[in-house]
Each structure stands twice: as C-alpha cells, then as structure tokens.
C-alpha cells in the first residue's frame, strides 16, 4: 500500500515465486514476506496478484500444494516446487540474466 514500495517488475513475479520456493516450501504470506525481505523491502507484492500467480503456476504443474500446520499452529496451504518448476526457474533465470545484462550494457554505453 505504501508508496515507497515498488510493484514487482511486470513478468518477473512468476520467476521470483519459483526462486523463493526453491529453498523450501512456503505458504502464500511466507512467499510475500520472503520476496519483501530478499529485495530489502523494494518489492511489495499485491496479495491478490500473488494468489492468482500461485494458482496459475500450480496449474502449469510447476508447483504442488498441500495443507499443513505452520510453526504458530495455524493451518496453511504450503507450496512446493516440482521438478518441472525447477527447470522452469533455471530457464527463466538464464533468460533474465541475458536480458538484464544486455539492458545494463546498453545503459552503460549510453552514459
């Protein structure tokens, strides 16, 4: 909600979710918190967009989900990265690095 936060760059949310889940299974809020922490508070995720993305990724077969207890004894839906999800993450990471590198080089040349 706060204006100092930046929305996640268009098209990178899926990749960031996959990355967050590559370490351990997380529930929805856990993922949001992880993204915020890892970006040092730069990215703030809209909950609706996050849950929509999770639904989409699960349908693509990149995630599986199951209900389990959280450490503070609430029932939560935990998402886990599948093998194809991992492959997708690697592919997207490689693709992103290539693009980002190119953009950075272009900006550097311009300056």
């Amino acid at each position: 909600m706060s204006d100092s936060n930046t929305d996640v760059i268009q098209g990178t949310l899926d990749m960031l979710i996959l990355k967050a889940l590559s370490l351990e299974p997380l529930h929805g809020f856990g993922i949001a918190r992880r993204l915020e922490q890892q970006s040092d508070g730069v990215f703030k995720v809209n909950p609706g967009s996050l849950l929509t993305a999770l639904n989409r990724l699960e349908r693509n077969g990149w995630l599986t989900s199951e209900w389990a207890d959280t450490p503070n004894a609430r029932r939560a839906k935990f998402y886990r990265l599948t093998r194809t999800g991992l492959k997708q993450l690697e592919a997207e990471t490689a693709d992103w690095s290539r693009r980002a590198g190119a953009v950075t080089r272009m900006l550097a040349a311009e300056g």
Partner: protein
Amino acid sequence: MSLRTRMAHGLRTLLRRSVADADLFDEVDHYVAEAAAAYRAQGLTESEARRAAQAEMGARTSVRQQIRGGNWEVTVESLAVDVLRAARRLRRAPAFAIVTVITLTLGVGASTAIFSVIRPVLLQALPYPDAERLIAIADAAGPGGAPMDVTFGTYRELAARSRTLEHVAVTRAWQPTLTGNGDAERLEGQSVSASYFGVLGIAPATGRDFSDADDRPGAAPVAIIADDLWRLRFGADGNLVGRSVILDGGPVVVVGILPHGFENVWNPAAQVWRPLGYDRSLPGDGREWGHHLQLLARLAPAVDLETARAEFAAIARTPAPQFTRPQWADLRAGFAATPLQEQVTAHVKPALVAVTIATFLLLLIAIVNVVNLVLARGADRRDELATCAAFGASRLRLQTPLVAEGLLLAIVGGALGVAVAHAMVGALVTLDGFALPRVGAIRVDNSALAFAVILSGLIGTAASALPALFVSSRDNPQASGTRIVSAHQRLRGAFVVAELALAVVLLVGAGLLVRTVDRLLAVSTGFRPDGVLTLQVQASGRRLEGPEAVRRFFDDARAAVQAVPGVTSVALTSQLPLTGDADVYGVGTRTAIALPPGADAGAFRYAVTPGYFRTMGIPLRRGRDIEDRDRAGAQPVAVISASVARRRFPDRDPIGEQIRIGPADNWFTVIGVVDDVRQSSLAAASGEGVYVPKGQWRFADRAMWVVVQTAGEPAAIEPAVRRAIHAVDRNQPIFKVATMAQRVAASAGRQRFAMTALDAFAAVALVLATLGVYGLLSGRVIQRTREIAVRSAIGATRSNIVDLVLRQAGGLAMRGILLGVVTAMLANRGLATLLFEVSPLDGGTYASVVAVLLLAAAIGALLPAWRAARIAPAAALQSP
C-alpha cells in the same frame, strides 16, 4: 502434462465447487491472518492490523474472481449460466421452442442423412489408390451407340496396343456353389483376368495375387477370397491359403485372401474370384469372341481421360494385321470410356442428386422458419429488450441471451437431427430396389457428425444474431419502435413468401415423381404378376456333371414343385423379366430384312418349359404354346414376341417360318406369337424375345428360374417349394426368391426412393409454410387490433374484417406461388432423367400444386381471421 493438470484442476473446480471455494477462502483467510500478525508485530493494534491486512487483500469474492478469472472453467460456468437462463426462458414459450426444434431436427436430420449417403457414393474417391485413374471401357456397338460388353479378343488387342493404360483387366460374373463345409452356399463372385486386382491397386493381405500362369486354359484351378468369406465360412483359419476348397463340386486351391475392408465396387456382393482362363490364341468359334466381358483399366500416370479416349478411337479406327477382328466385334462404333466412379454410381446419381437438392430446399425452409420464429419472438420481446438498451445494456450484453437461446435450440435440434439421420440412413441402405453402391461405407460417421454440428451451430448463431441486430440498432423504444416493427414485418413477410415458394418447388417435384411412379406401375408389363412366386436354382457339382444330368434334375424339380399343394402351375425359364438378366443373341431370318442401322440389338433368348406363358400370364396371340412333345430330337420350334413378328416378318404370317437365334446353324420353326414383356425394366421399351423349348437349346442352362403360380399368397408357399426342390437334390442352392409383384415394385425403386423423400419433404414444407402464414398474420392482427376496432366501430362488418386478413394471405400466397413456379420450372429440370412419360413442365401437376398452396395459405389465415373478426371495438379501443 501441463494441459492435463490444467484440465484436471478445472474439472475438480467445476465438479466440487464448494470444496474448491472453501479451499480458496481458507487460503485467503490465512493470508490475511498472517499479514495482520505481521502488522501487529510492527506495533499496530489488533483492529488496525486486521483492517490493514483486509484492505490489502480486498473482498473475498472479488479475490476469488481475480484468481479464477484466467481459468477455462470460468468461461464454461458463465456459458452454462447463460444456457440455463435461456432454457428457463424457452420453457415459458413452449410452442416457439417445440416448433423450432422440430424444424431444426427435420432440416439437420435430412441433410445429415443425405450427406452421409452422398459423401461415399458421389463425393469421395473410390476406395483404391489413385482411384481417379480407374476407368471402365465398353464397346460402343449397342443400339444408338450404347455401351456393350466387350469380347476377350477386343481386350487382348486394346491391352497390347494402348499406351495410355497402365493396367487393363476384364471380368464377368461367376456364381459358384461352395460345398463340403456346412450347407451348400451359392456365392457371388467374378471370373477375372490376372490383372484385375492390379488395376484396382489392391494386393491380397495373405497369400498371392493371380499370376499370368493361373490365367490360361487348363491351369490348375485357383481362387482368391474375400476377408468376410474367410472369417464367416472358414473361421479365419490361418492355414487356409494353399489348401483346397470345393467350388462347383471340384477342388480349387485358395491362393490369396483380400485385405479386411476391401470394397469391390464393381460387384459389392462378390466374395470369390478365379482367373478367367481364356485361350489367348483366340479360336474363332469359342467364347473368346463373345460380348460378355466388362473391361476395367487404370490410366497411366499423368494421362487424362480425353487423351486416352482419342487413343482408343484411333485404335478402333485402324485395325492392325496381327489382331484379327470378326465382323461382330469390328469396333467400327469405337469405344466408350467412363470414369469407374461414374460407371458404378450412374444408376443412383439422378435420384440422389434430386433428393440432395430437395434436402437443400428443406434445409432452406427450416432456416427461414427458424429465423422467422426468432424474429417473431424478438418482436414480442421488443419492449423488454428496448428497456434493457435504454438502461445502457451493451450490444453484446443484449445479444448474449438471444445467442444462447439460438444455440440451445440448435444443440437440441442438432442432437435430435443426428438421431433422425441415423434412422434415415438405416432405412435408406436397406431400401428395396434402390441398389446403392458402396453401401458398406454409408454411415453417420464422424464427418457426418461434424457436418451436423457445424450446420446446427451456424443456423443457431445466424438465427439468433439477426433479431439481436435489430434490437441493438435502436436506442430509444419510443422513438424508433414503429420503424423497427415495420422493418421486422417486411422481412418476415419476405421470409413467408420464400417459404411458400420453396414449398411450391418441393411439391412440384414430389407431384412429378408421384405421377411417374403411377405411370411406371401402370405400364403394361406383358405378364400378370399376381400370385406368382419366382426363385432361381443353380445346378452344380459333380453329380450334375453332364447336360443330361442337369436336364433331368430340373425336370424332376419341376415335377416335385408341381406336386406341392396350392400350386396351380409351374414352369422353368432360363431368364426372367425384371431380374437384370440380359441373355441376348443375334437373330436371323431366311429372307433378309432391312432394319434401320443400329436397330438390330438381337433378341432375349428364353429357354422355357411348357406352361411358362400360362404361369406368367403372358397372352399367346397366335399359333400354339410350347408342349411336351417339343423335346430334344423333335423338330426345333420357337415362340416369338409380337415385336419380332412385326419387325422380322413384316409382310407375312410368321407361323411356320424359320428363325435363327445365336450360331449360324441354330434354326427354329415359329409356332406361336406372344405379347412383348418388359425384360430390362419398366421404363425401358420391351426388347424382342425368342422362346425355345428348354430341351431343344444347344446346351443345358445351369441356372434356371422356377416360376410358380398359386391361387393364394405367393410368398406363403416358398418353404414348401424349397422343400420340394431340396427333396430332389439338397446340394443345389436356391436364391433370389421374390414374388413377381415385388420385382415389379423394385423396378420402380429409383423413382420410388426419390418420390418417398420428396413426398415427405414437401409435406413438411407445406406444414411449415402454413405455420409461417399463420404466425405472420396473427402477429399482424395483434398489431392492428386498434385499427381493426376503429374499422368495425365505423361500420365494417365481420366479413369485411375477415376479407382484410384473407386478402393479406392471398397476397402472400400469390407472390409465393409466382416465385415458386418460376423456380420449380428451372429446378425440376434436374428430375428429367427420373421421370417417365411425364413432362417436367406437366401442367396438371403445377395446377394441383397451386391449388394445394392456396388452400394451405387459407388454412394458415383462418385462425387469425377469426380472431380479427371477434375483436370487440369498445374493449380494444379502451385498453391502453
């Protein structure tokens, strides 16, 4: 993987919606709780934290919409809702729904059925590789250039000299009797040159094709059999190839089994093939020079039919010294080559084309009717829709329910139509006397289903989109309502006129065919079919090796049938009218007669027993009947038909004159004259006929017809007749059993098929047109209620008011009739080849159709007129 999981997820959501929703809401709630906890940890109060978290998330249901929005099942869900609503609306208008569905069912059903038939028969290539290269070639030496079977000699010459043909084959019918493995069975088969399957481009699935060595006189007897025969008769015995089976009493080695599903379009019933085995040295007096072979060929690649035809003509024109030609096969008339597809479908094509056109007309009527019904409904709902539009409903939003309604009706009508198509196709393929080629391939298959689906979908969308366009083109119900209504009315009036016109076209077609069938059945056949049962018996096998044994068997069989109770008379004949038999021989007289060129097509040769004319009811006009004393060794005698007497003995009494039939020394003394009979078909003019005593013909016919006259129902004595023949020899198969009356009926089969279809379609068209008139006029009466009330208030009588409505009906009918008659005069030309002794412009038919249509329009106008007459002026004018 991905598609499958997506489908699985969607289905789960659809089927277990409450579970899926609960799951989603739980997840959302948990998220909010965690977020609130985080805010609390940042120092917010309990309620502030909860509010902030909730605000971030938004309302639960809208979150659900957002999450689910991209999933396919949502589209399905909203469609389902629209369809359910449409169904509810239609339930409130049952008359509209039922009439529309019935119309669609008939239209889609009939067109799907006819599509299922014409696709394999007329549209698809024959089921052979490069089937478009297959042709049939005939000797054009028949009367008036008609095609005629070729001789073996002609085949040898053409095969050797032609460069445009890749393969050439000849074939003739062969009906062997299979014994030694269950009951004796008479099989349908073909004697073929070794190249036959090569021409078709088909090789046996098991074993080998015929070789050149098989196809010579004296070669060891071999046969190739169909997959069906192998399965049904030999239990799919894997070791059958190379073993012998007993055909016509002798062992024949099976060398090959054809592939499963092989279709033999030339003779669909054939199950067994043997090499022809004719003598290639072409002895001048042998069967090698008889006109009894059908010639099939495969064009060389990249050769078109015209090039080939030119080459055949050149070959026919220029005899080569190494190929002798007897005078009766001199090829002076040239060859007639047609694509094989045309050849095998020629007999059904006119009827099928006529019915296809009729189906198309019916479909047009159905579409017009549906559009009309939907338009009428749109007019009824004008206010409702206009209100929606005024409140700002988008064009799309207005159209959606209408389209949903149209689609729902189309789906129901289409599904019922497919069921109707199934039933119709089932009835068609078994229709008596209408031998459809490729019957095995005719069925309502996937492409027919796709056809039905696309058709009903198109009709549904078109019908529903049209009124929706009218509605959305208007923004203010008050301002433009009247204009829309009158546009509506004009359009609906035009549609009703179109319906009436199409009904006229169908009625005229149906009427012409009804007259044709009447005329055909009224044709003087020359015989009396009542009470006559006919069946064919084949003498075959070792025990009946010689001609004497064959003659004795038939004499004994005739005596046995004579003894059956209820049989008043029985006779045998080598060929029977209306069976497809065409045993024709050249005819000569002692004094040469000058017949017009091409007019001497020979005469049908009948070898008969005494009593044949009596049994068949063929009147003897002069002289005497064939009697028992006219046996072998006695003076050869013949009875001739009236046309032979007239043409060959124009100036004298034929009785006592000599007539030759067949070979040069085959002379008979004429003892009597009988009426002409229709041998080939009811429609074809009677050919000449020469009847000789069975015992005096130069060979013993092995297939004879048993003709039984009974006082009672002829079909009822069939079992007793069978038993009597089998008591003589139970190995001789009996087949082609039918009463003479059935044969007469079957001979009009093509016309009857087209007539039945057109009758039904015309009836439907008439009913729909009547309904159209009714619907339009009752709508107008309702709209003009006030006007009519004013008229009667200022003195119009009830009959004035009725006149007013009837005049409208009359105007519609006249326009429909005018348009329809002109269209019918053009369209029904296509029926010409089916018609018999009826002109496509038959005045009587047109007159009665016009009368029927006027009557229908009057009936349609009756109820609206009555309603109009009953309008009470005071009440009508006071109502708002």
